[in-house]
């Protein structure tokens, strides 16, 4: 049975009786050693080919899938709060994967979209949620979202996030988070109304990562909406995540859960990180009773995934799950360059084409300027990334690889010190939301460059 609180409680009970290991043992011994053993067993060591950053060998992807299944069964998820391992049996893992939905309708009336499982080179366009949870001043929230949602390239509403509530700093694990849940939900409704997008689907909630904000926001929307259950790190869970899963199931929402796998961290190189990502995807459907998973791969060196190694790792793991299951996957594509920079657009073309062609169902974006700089987010980056993601539907993996090989050399030397670009008030008149000429011209130029690379670019419906 899928998506049931009783099933979820069964796994929570297992956290009380599961094998007890310290966090250090898990991070330093169990996780890396198991992944390494599995990579060796399936002949996957040193299969990453950085000269071809988008994997095109689908038999290799299938081999990775087998390794990922074994990793899921041997590892399970580590619960940070109980310091125990929650394991699943093969039958539980496979039955939860089998029972997972291949389609999820979200939104009402003309705002309804259906998030569908996809295959590599699938001709059905993927779904785009935006913008990502980048920090934004309270006063910019409504102008940014009203303008952004005027484009139908944005199917589902996610961010941005606030760092203040009614002017007071939003502090973690305090009632400010509950207040932020209600507050952001109201701002969302107002902005969606102004944009004429009432009834559109939401991912809740951007300004609070805990169960406090989740519960507050969910109470203000008609269901189903999507809860963002971001687990602490690869192949882990905790009580905060489990709280959010229970709340979401009880309220009739959809659970999206998973965590970035940090390549270069405990999950080691691109091959082991791909195996961990697949295992992470699979385990969400049993232990968290998820409706969709989210286990991207980030390169620890620059916290992004538009460089060669992370892109290869994310494409091979996405292809593995897409080819061998009907699971809906959400993976983020992380740029490090900021708004109104050529590098941002180049990273975006590479990342969104590669992931769309690999069979990704859904993404939320963009992470302009690595998500580090407040107000570094504008509608133009959101529309551009969605157009590329959707336009790349049906492209072959070989074509995606060709595009990556052409563009990556133009920016990879800047990963350590990327241009952060400019902020929303520097690039738009906040009253009219009109972009400055330089910003508009670069956007239009990069759309033409994307088309010249062979990517059909759907119009944004606002500027073009």
């Amino acid at each position, binding site marked *: 049975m899928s998506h049931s609180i009783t099933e979820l409680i069964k796994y929570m009970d297992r956290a009380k009786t599961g094998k007890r290991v310290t*966090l250090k043992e898990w991070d330093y011994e169990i996780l890396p050693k198991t992944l390494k053993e599995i990579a060796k067993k399936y002949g996957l060591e040193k299969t990453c080919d950085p000269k071809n950053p988008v994997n095109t060998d689908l038999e290799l992807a299938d081999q990775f899938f087998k390794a990922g299944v074994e990793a899921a069964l041997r590892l399970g998820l580590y619960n940070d709060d109980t310091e125990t391992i929650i394991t699943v049996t093969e039958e539980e893992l496979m039955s939860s994967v089998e029972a997972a939905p291949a389609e999820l309708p979200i939104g009402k009336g003309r705002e309804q979209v259906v998030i569908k499982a996809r295959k590599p080179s699938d001709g059905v366009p993927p779904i785009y949620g935006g913008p990502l949870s980048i920090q934004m001043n309270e006063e910019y929230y409504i102008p940014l979202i009203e303008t952004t949602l005027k484009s139908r390239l944005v199917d589902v509403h996610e961010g941005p996030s606030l760092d203040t509530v009614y002017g007071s700093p939003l502090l973690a694990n*305090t009632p400010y988070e509950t207040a932020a849940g209600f507050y952001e939900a109201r701002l969302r409704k107002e902005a969606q109304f102004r944009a004429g997008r009432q009834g559109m689907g939401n991912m809740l909630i951007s300004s609070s990562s805990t169960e406090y904000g989740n519960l507050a926001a969910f109470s203000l929307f008609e269901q189903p909406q999507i809860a963002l259950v971001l687990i*602490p790190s690869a192949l882990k869970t*905790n009580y905060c995540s489990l709280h959010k899963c229970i709340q979401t199931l009880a309220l009739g929402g959809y659970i999206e859960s998973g965590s970035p796998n940090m390549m270069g961290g405990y999950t*080691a190189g691109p091959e082991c990180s791909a195996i961990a990502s697949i295992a992470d995807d699979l385990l969400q459907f049993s232990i968290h009773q998820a409706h969709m998973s989210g286990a991207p791969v980030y390169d*620890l060196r620059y916290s992004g995934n538009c460089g060669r190694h992370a892109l290869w790792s994310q494409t091979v793991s996405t292809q593995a799950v897409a080819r061998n299951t009907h699971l809906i996957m959400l993976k983020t594509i992380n740029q490090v360059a900021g708004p109104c920079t050529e590098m941002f657009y180049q990273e975006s073309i590479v990342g969104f084409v590669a992931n769309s062609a690999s069979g990704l169902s859904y993404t939320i974006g963009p992470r302009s300027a690595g998500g*580090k700089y407040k107000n570094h987010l504008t509608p133009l980056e959101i529309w551009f990334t969605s157009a590329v993601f959707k336009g790349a539907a049906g492209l072959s993996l070989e074509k995606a690889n060709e595009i990556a090989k052409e563009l990556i050399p133009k920016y990879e030397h800047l990963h350590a010190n990327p241009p952060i670009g400019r902020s929303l008030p520097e690039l738009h008149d906040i009253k009219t939301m009109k972009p400055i000429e330089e910003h508009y011209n670069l956007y239009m130029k990069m759309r033409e460059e994307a088309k010249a690379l062979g990517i059909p670019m759907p119009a944004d419906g606002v500027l073009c």
Partner: protein
Amino acid sequence: MASYEELANSVIRGNAPKVIELTKSLVESGCDPLEIINQGLIGGMNVVGARFKVGEMFVPEVLMAARAMSSGVEIVKPLIAEGDMPSAGKVVLGTVKGDLHDIGKNLVAMMLESAGFEVLNLGVDISPEKFAEAVKEHQPDVVAMSALLTTTMLAMKDTIDVLAEEGLRDKVKVIVGGAPISEEFAQEIGADGYAPDAASATELCKNLIGQAS
């Protein structure tokens, strides 16, 4: 006779049994224990740190190398007078209040220890008051704070403020890091430095301690 180069290479490979064998051999041959540490053990770890920084080695390999180095240090340590034990400096480290994420912080701890720093890892969800207590008790050269969430990064400024209120701010250097942190944010809250990754944090500590002395 074993050489320092062989010892360093065994550290790089994370081969603890070999490191133990070579360290014992060098000690028995009458080599200076400080040279064994500096040229062999820390020498190997310096290479590991550099390779980690450019992505040629990953955390599990760094960890194995660090453990191999420690197994060698344990043999040599009793032969060195306490005050002569090389230390690059002392660092108090923790994830700030409200934040339970520790991957970045633990990586920084590991890289610092490997580079010869004495590290007091306070853990996660550390309040400004706990940081201040640790500074009073251990008198570190550097306080290093980590945060992953935009809702917790504000606790970094609170910690700096408490250090100032307690009259401790001028006695330590403060560095910050974590996914939402930037150089600009570090400057805004009055930190002495920002490190984008674990390897850079080690260099930053070395530079700050060098400047202070």
